[in-house]
C-alpha cells in the first residue's frame, strides 16, 4: 500500500512539474492542480497510513494521526484559493493580450514565438 501511495505521489509530482513547465497558462493551471494533489498526499502520508482507524473518538480503539489530516484539510482549501487566483490571472492575461502564453512579454515562450 505504501508503495502504491508513494508511487502515486511520484507520478502526480512528475506530471505536475511537466505541465507547469509548459508555455501556456491552462496547462500550467492543470499542473498546479496536480502538484497540489501530490503535496497534499505527501503531507497526509507523513502521518503514516492506516486503514479503518479514523481519528474520531470511540469507546475503544486506536486512531490514525489526526494532525496531518488537519493540516491537509487546510491545505486543500488554500490550494483551491491559489488555483482560483491562478485561473483568474490566466483569464485576465488572456483578455488583456489575446494570448495565453506565460513567456516573456506575453508570448508563449521565446522558442515558439517565431512560429506563430
Amino acid at each position: 500500500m505504501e508503495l502504491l501511495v508513494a508511487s502515486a505521489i511520484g507520478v502526480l509530482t512528475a506530471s505536475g512539474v511537466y505541465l507547469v513547465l509548459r508555455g501556456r497558462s491552462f496547462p500550467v493551471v492543470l499542473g498546479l492542480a496536480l502538484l497540489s494533489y501530490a503535496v497534499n498526499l505527501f503531507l497526509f502520508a507523513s502521518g503514516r497510513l492506516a486503514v479503518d482507524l479514523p481519528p474520531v473518538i470511540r469507546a475503544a480503539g486506536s486512531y490514525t494521526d489526526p494532525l496531518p489530516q488537519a493540516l491537509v484539510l487546510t491545505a486543500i482549501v488554500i490550494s483551491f484559493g491559489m488555483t482560483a487566483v491562478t485561473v483568474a490571472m490566466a483569464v485576465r492575461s488572456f483578455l488583456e493580450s489575446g494570448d495565453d502564453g506565460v513567456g516573456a512579454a506575453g508570448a508563449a515562450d521565446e522558442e515558439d514565438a517565431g512560429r506563430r
Partner: protein
Amino acid sequence: MALALIVILPFAGALLPALFARLGRGASALAAFGVSALALGLLLSLAPQVFGGEVVHAGRPWLPRLGLNAHLFLDGLGFLFALLILVIGLLVIVYARFHLPARDPGGRFHALLLLFQGAMLGIVLSDNVLLLLVFWELTSLASFLLIGYWRHLPESRQGARMALTVTAGGGLALIAGMLILGDIAGSYDLTVILQRGDAIRASPQYLPALLLILGGCFTKSAQFPFHFWLPHAMAAPTPVSAYLHSATMVKAGVFLLARLWPVLSGTDAWFYLVATTGLVTMLVGAVVALFRDELKALLAYSTVSHLGLVTMLFGFGTPLAAVAGVFHILNHAIFKAALFMNAGIVDHEVGSRDLRHLGGLAALMPLTATIGAVAAASMAGVPLLNGFLSKEMMLDAAAQAQWAGQGWVVPLVATLAAMFSVAYSLRYAAQAFFVRRHEAYRKKVRDPALGLWLPPMLLVALVVLIGVFPGTFAGPLVTTAAKAVVGAPVRSYDLALWHGVTPALALSVFAFAGGGILLWRYADARRLWLAAPQPQAKPAFDAAVAAVTEFCRAVTDGLHDGSLRHYLGWIIAGALVVGVGGFLGGGHEAGTRATLAAPPVAIVAWLLLVACCAGVLAFERRRMLALVMLGVVGLIVAFGFLYLSAPDLALTQIAVEVVTVILMLLALTVLPHETPRGTRRLRRLGDAALAAVAGLGAGAAAFALMTRDFDSLSSYYLERSLPDGGGANVVNVILVDFRGFDTFGEIIVLGIAALAVFALVDGARGLTRTGVAPGMLAADLHPLLLAVVARVMLPLALVVAAYVFFRGHNAPGGGFVAGLIVAIALIMQHVAGGTGWAVRRMHVDAPVLIGAGVLLAATTGLAAWVFARPFLTSTYGHFALPLVGAVEVASATAFDAGVFLAVVGAVMLMLASLARVGRGRAKRAAAPAVPPTAARRAED
C-alpha cells in the same frame, strides 16, 4: 533610571519638534532645546557618582538568549562623550535656529538632530555591543538624512549617499567584528568583554576581529583611505557639520577605539594598524587642508587630520598616549565646533565661504573675527589655548614612539603634520579676517545676531579657560575618562601649561617655524601642490558604484527575463539540487515500519490514477478532455483519503474537486480550448527529465517517510480532544479549537484570494476577446432540465449542508465541507439559470458573507477575553431540548459557522466573477445558433 532616560529622551522628544513645526521654527527649536537640556540635567545629576569613581548601570534584558541586552552604563569615558554630545548639541540647536533659512522645514531638522543625538548617546552609553551596533547604524542613518537635508541639491544627495555607503559598509564589518569579539569573550556585555582582555588578545580570532572592528572605526572616523566621504558630507547645513562631522559622529570611531582600548591594544598588530593609519591620516589630512580654499572643505580635511592624530595616540598603546587622546578629543570637539560655526557665520553674513574672495573681515565683524582667530590659533597649537596642551602631549608621545625599531619616523611625520596644521590654521584666520581685500563686499557685512555668535563664543571661552587653567576646567573630566579607558588610575601625568624645555616643545617650535615659512611661501607651495598628481575620490567612488549597479542589473535581468517557465525551472532544479545533494551527503537505510497489504481495489484505483495522469499529459492540447481526466485524478485522491482513515479529507476533497472543475470550465469559456503545437522536442525532453527526477524524489521521500516510526505531538490532540474541546472528531476540533488561530488566518486568506479573483476578472469587463471558436459552446445556454433539477436540488443540498455542519464536531463534516456544499448548490443555480437570474435572487453579496464569516469567527475568539481567557479559548456545554433531547453546544460551533460563511462567500465570489466574464462571450458565441426567444431568456 536617569541613565536610561538620557538615551530615551531624545528619541521620544524627536516627536515634539515635528509636532511643533506648525508653530514656526522657534517652537520646534525650543522643543528640541528643552529635550536636550533635560537630558543634560539628568546627566549632570549623575556626575557626582561618576567623579566618585562609580560606574552607573541601568537597563533590562531584551533578548537574553541572543545575548542582546538593553544594558547601559556610565563611566568616565561615557560621561565625557555624553557631555560633549549634549552641550554641543544645545549650542548647535540655538545656532541652527538663527542660521537656517526660515523657509527650510525646521521641524524635520530638529527631529533628525534629536534622533541623531539619541543614537549617539546610545553608542557612548551602551553596555552591550549588540545594542551599541544598533545605535551605530542609527547614527549612520541620521547622518545620511541630515547631510541630505537639502534634498533639492544634487551634491547633498550624492554626499549623503557616499557617507552612508562608506559608514554603513564599515558598520557591516563592525557587526562581524563585534560578533567575533563577543564569541571569544563569551558575552556581548561590554563590562564582561572589558575584563577578558588577555583571553581576547591570545585568541586566534583576535586578528580577524581586530581588522573588522577597525574597518568600522576607520570608516566612521574618516581615516585614510576611507576619509573621502567627510569632505563630501560638507554639503550638509553648517550646524550639522559642526555637530556631526566635527564634534560627535566622526568621534564615534575613535570612541570605540578608546572603549575597546583595554581589550584590543598592546599588540603589534594594534600598534602598526592603528598608529600607522592615524599617522598617515594626520599628515594627508593636514596637507590637503592647506590647499583648500573653501572654508568648510579646509575644516573637513583638518578634522580628518585631527581624527588621525587621536587614532595614532590610541594606537601607541601606552596609557599616557591614551590620556592625550582623550584630552584631544575634548579639545578638538570644542575648537572645531566653534570653527564650523564661525565659517557658517561668514557664509551667512558675507554669502561666500571661499578664502580667495574673503579678507579684511576683522574690521567689519570683530566678534566673528575674534572667534575665528582664537579657535584657529588653538587648532594650530598656540600656547595658552587648549589645542596647545594636547598637541604637546601628542608630540611628547610621538617623540617616544618606535616605529619598526626606528625612533625618528613617528616624530618626523607628526611634526610635519603639525607644521601643515599650523599653516592651514593660520591661513584660515589670516586670509579670512586679516589680509586686506581689494574690492568692497557687495552687501553690508557686520556681526550677526546674538544667537549666531554666542554659541561659538561660549566654546571659545572654554578654549581659553582650558588653555590657561587645564587642571581646573578639564582635569577631573579627563582624569576620570582616562581612567575608564586605561582601566586603572594613570600614573602621574600633569595637565599643565609649562613642562619645561622638553623634546615636545622643541618639535612644537619646529612646527611653528615650518608652518610660518609654508604660509610665507604659500604661492610656491601651491604651485608645487597643483603640479603633483591628485587622485580624486569622487569619480572613483562613482565609477565603483556604477559598476556594482551595472553588475546587479545584468544579474537581475539575466535571471528575471519574464518567462514563467524559466523561473519555475530554476526553482524546481534548485530544489532538486538541494534534495539530491542532501540525500547523497547523508547515509540511507531502508525504513523498518511494517507496510500495509494492498487490496485489489487499491491497485485498480492506482492504475486508474496513473492512466489519468498520463491522459492529462497526452491530451494536454485538448483542454476539455484534460480537465475531465484531472477530475478523475481528484476523485481517486478523495477515494484514497476515505480508504486511509481520513473521512474529513475525502469529503473536503470531493467538494473542492467539484468547485475546481467548475472554475476551470468557466475559464474555458474565455481561454482557447486547444493548445497550439510549438514547443521543441528537445525542450519537451528536458522538461520531462526534470519532471521525472522530481517525481522520483518526491515518491522516494514519501516512501521513506511512510516506512518509518516516529513520534509526533498527535497523541496530545487525541487525548485532549474530548475533554478539552468537547468534540469526538479530532480533526475538526484541531481546526476550530486547538489550532483555531491558524484556521482564522486561513479563512482570511481565502477571502483575500476571492477578492483578488474578483478584482482581476472584474477589471477586465470591457475586454471582449475570446479564444473559444464559434460553435464550441452548447447552443442552449440554460437547458430546461438542468434548471429544474438544480432548483429542486437546492433545498436538499442546504439540508445536507446543515447536517454536515452540525455533525462536524463529533463526526466527519464541519464548516469547510458544509460551506463548499452550499456554494456548489448555489453555483448550480448560476449555471442552470444564468448569473443574472441567480444574482437577482441572492439577497446577500458574497463579499458581505466573507466579511460576516471573518467577523463571526473573530467575535467568537474575542468573547473569550470577556472571561479573561486568551483569544479563541473555547468552551462547551450540554443542554436538554424538548423533542430533540440532549444537545451539545460548543463555542467552537460559532467559530465553525464563521468558517462556513467565509467559505460560502469566497467560493461564490470566485465562481460568480469568472462566470460573469464568461457569460457575455458565451452569449455572443452562441447567438447565431439560438432562436431570438432563447437569446432573450439567456439575458436572465
